[in-house]
């Protein structure tokens, strides 16, 4: 018995029961504290789940309506006289024709009573100005339509869309809201079955646009995809190679300590600093194109690299030394030991680290602002060198737009981003499983 337990000295004949009494006295308290701790844990988990639920509910609640878009069915007459007044059926001419006229004349046929100039303009405003481009694309793809009459669903303007979805009230007179006449026309089109909500294909296949009804996430998604591709292809091999070198080959000295400290510091550097570095080095010095996913990818590589190195080093460290000894013991060279034994065992852990880094890179917007990926880019990028934006930047841009219809599109873009993330994580889980099955 130790000196700080005078009770045992005072009663040396029954030290066991004394100890037992003390243990028993403490047991209830110990159990209580364990129960309390469990409760804390449960509470934290519930707290997290509630907020995750709130977040998802608000995003989905705001965004689900963006997947449908109001469309107007119009009887479009691809009138040769309107499109090709001089009678030269050359494709080049057809692309330059005024397709707006087709929409206007179709609306005029639908509402023959509207004749006044100002009213006509309001009437034309029911259909998206982008509808003309759809007609052009349709005709260019299928020139035999020239001269025929087609019943087509064309995108309605965003205020009609908002009206139909109930996002804006019917109160007239406020600027940006439909006037009384427009409300009546909308009601009439609806009653005739010419105005319906349809699947919003444009949202998934087109790039950004000033018109909400035509704005899509495909450009930003592809931009993000190219960027992550560049990031993954650069940061994973580089990070793993650096980790292997530092863990398995580098001597332990002041230099490697210095490098280690710096890698840990780099992981904590605010991402916008990497953006500035990218702007200074990749764009100004190396002359890479502005707004291109390849530059964004390079910047995100700088940002992701330390995360991957740290995770990969931890994974390598967790490989039991007995495996290394076994390989070295039968004469494997250090490189064979690493590549035949250590790396396969560390790979699942490395993949987890890589996916955490990639997920962070996917959600990053600040450094991309610095390298020009915040620009308005309406075209869908075809290669990593084309100007593009990224999903988080697109969300930021839309959240900043004044049109009511961009609110739901912002939430819908968040849903696309989350889906992208989910797909990436599932891919990582699948890869992990695959590699782990090799024992």
């Amino acid at each position, binding site marked *: 018995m130790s000196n700080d337990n005078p009770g045992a000295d005072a009663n040396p004949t029954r030290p066991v029961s004394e100890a037992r009494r003390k243990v028993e006295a403490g047991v209830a308290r110990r159990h209580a504290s364990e129960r309390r701790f469990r409760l804390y844990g449960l509470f934290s988990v519930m707290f997290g789940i509630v907020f995750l639920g709130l977040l998802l509910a608000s995003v989905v609640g705001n965004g689900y309506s963006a997947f449908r878009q109001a469309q107007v069915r119009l009887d479009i007459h691809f009138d040769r006289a309107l499109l090709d007044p001089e009678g030269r059926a050359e494709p080049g001419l057809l692309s330059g024709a005024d397709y707006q006229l087709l929409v206007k004349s179709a609306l005029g046929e639908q509402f023959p009573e509207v004749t006044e100039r100002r009213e006509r303009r309001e009437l034309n405003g029911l259909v998206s100005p982008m509808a003309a481009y759809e007609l052009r694309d349709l005709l260019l793809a299928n020139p035999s339509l020239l001269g025929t009459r087609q019943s087509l669903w064309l995108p309605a303007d965003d205020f009609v869309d908002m009206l139909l979805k109930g996002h804006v009230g019917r109160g007239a007179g406020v600027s940006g809201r439909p006037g009384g006449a427009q409300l009546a026309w909308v009601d009439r089109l609806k009653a005739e079955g010419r105005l319906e909500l349809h699947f919003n294909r444009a949202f998934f296949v087109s790039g950004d646009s000033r018109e909400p009804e035509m704005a899509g996430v495909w450009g930003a998604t592809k931009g993000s995809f190219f960027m992550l591709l560049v990031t993954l292809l650069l940061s994973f091999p580089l990070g793993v190679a650096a980790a292997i070198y530092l863990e398995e080959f580098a001597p332990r000295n002041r230099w490697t300590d210095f490098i280690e400290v710096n890698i840990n510091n780099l992981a904590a550097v605010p991402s916008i600093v990497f953006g500035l570095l990218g702007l200074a080095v990749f764009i100004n010095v190396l002359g890479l194109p502005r707004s291109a996913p390849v530059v964004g990818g390079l910047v995100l590589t700088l940002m992701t690299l330390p995360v991957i190195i740290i995770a990969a080093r931890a994974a390598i460290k967790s490989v039991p030394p007995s495996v290394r000894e*076994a*390989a*070295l*013991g*039968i*004469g494997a060279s250090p490189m064979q030991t690493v590549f*035949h*034994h250590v790396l396969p*065992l560390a790979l699942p852990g490395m993949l987890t680290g890589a996916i955490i880094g990639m997920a962070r890179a996917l959600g990053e917007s600040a450094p991309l602002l610095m390298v020009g990926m915040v620009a308005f880019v309406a075209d869908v990028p075809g290669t990593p060198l084309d100007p593009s934006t990224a999903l988080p930047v697109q969300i930021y841009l839309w959240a900043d737009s004044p049109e009511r219809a961009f609110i739901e599109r912002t939430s819908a873009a968040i849903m696309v981003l989350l889906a992208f993330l989910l797909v990436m994580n599932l891919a990582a889980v699948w890869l992990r499983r695959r590699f782990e099955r*090799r024992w």
Partner: protein
Amino acid sequence: MPLDDRSTDRPVIPTTSQRTGGGSGTVGDIHAREPVITVRDCNVHYGDTHALKQVSLDIGRNEVVSLIGPSGCGKSTFIRCLNRMNDTIESARVTGDFRLDGQDIYAKDMDVVLLRARVGMVFQKPNPFPKSIFENVAYGPRIHGLAGSRRQLDDIVYESLERAGLLAEVKDRLDEPGTGLSGGQQQRLCIARAIAVSPDVILMDEPCSALDPIATARIEDLIDELREKYAIAIVTHSMQQAARVSQRTAYFHLGNLVEVGPTEKIFTNPGHKLTEDYVTGRFG
């Protein structure tokens, strides 16, 4: 210091004790009849710790030398010097003269890969690769290019498993993971893996300490058979095991090689007080 220099037909490498008149104080004959490995004046430092002091010992062909002694006495350190596994420990500093068939183990031009192909090792904890049983044994021959064809590789694997006494138990499940075997089977798999590259010497670092008595008995029988072909050094904590499997025994104490001699003599008539205390169980 009774150092009877019996053999005259081999080059005599003087030990420190001979040179300094018994400085290191090893009792008994450090020489083997047909030495494969000769070690003279081995000193190992781990940082500031002097782990092995002036140790000189031979390991001979067709004999099992057992290394006994209390924990931390330097037995494992000693055998890890013989295939340069201590190279992997950054703070370890090894000095002394180590020769494998007359070739300097620590020479600059000694290829460690080649050395470890000639001096195999079995570790305390069975450490099969997390691969199939076949791959475990085939790995060594494969990296050293011992098999010209798949068929030759098969032959090597089967023969090694047979010699390790494991073939009968695993021949129907060679593609199952080696880590799924029982502890004793795993250790025999590791022995098969070591002998698959046809080494000259096998070092065993407490190969049975993690095994039950039945598995231990099998490994001991195996060691006895392997003696026909290889020189074996075995570190063990079990004196019964040392008595059963080895022809010569070396007793280490606090980094010193206290006594070495025929196993029977060490256990029945030790020449040093420390050895006597240890083998009679007075401490250790």
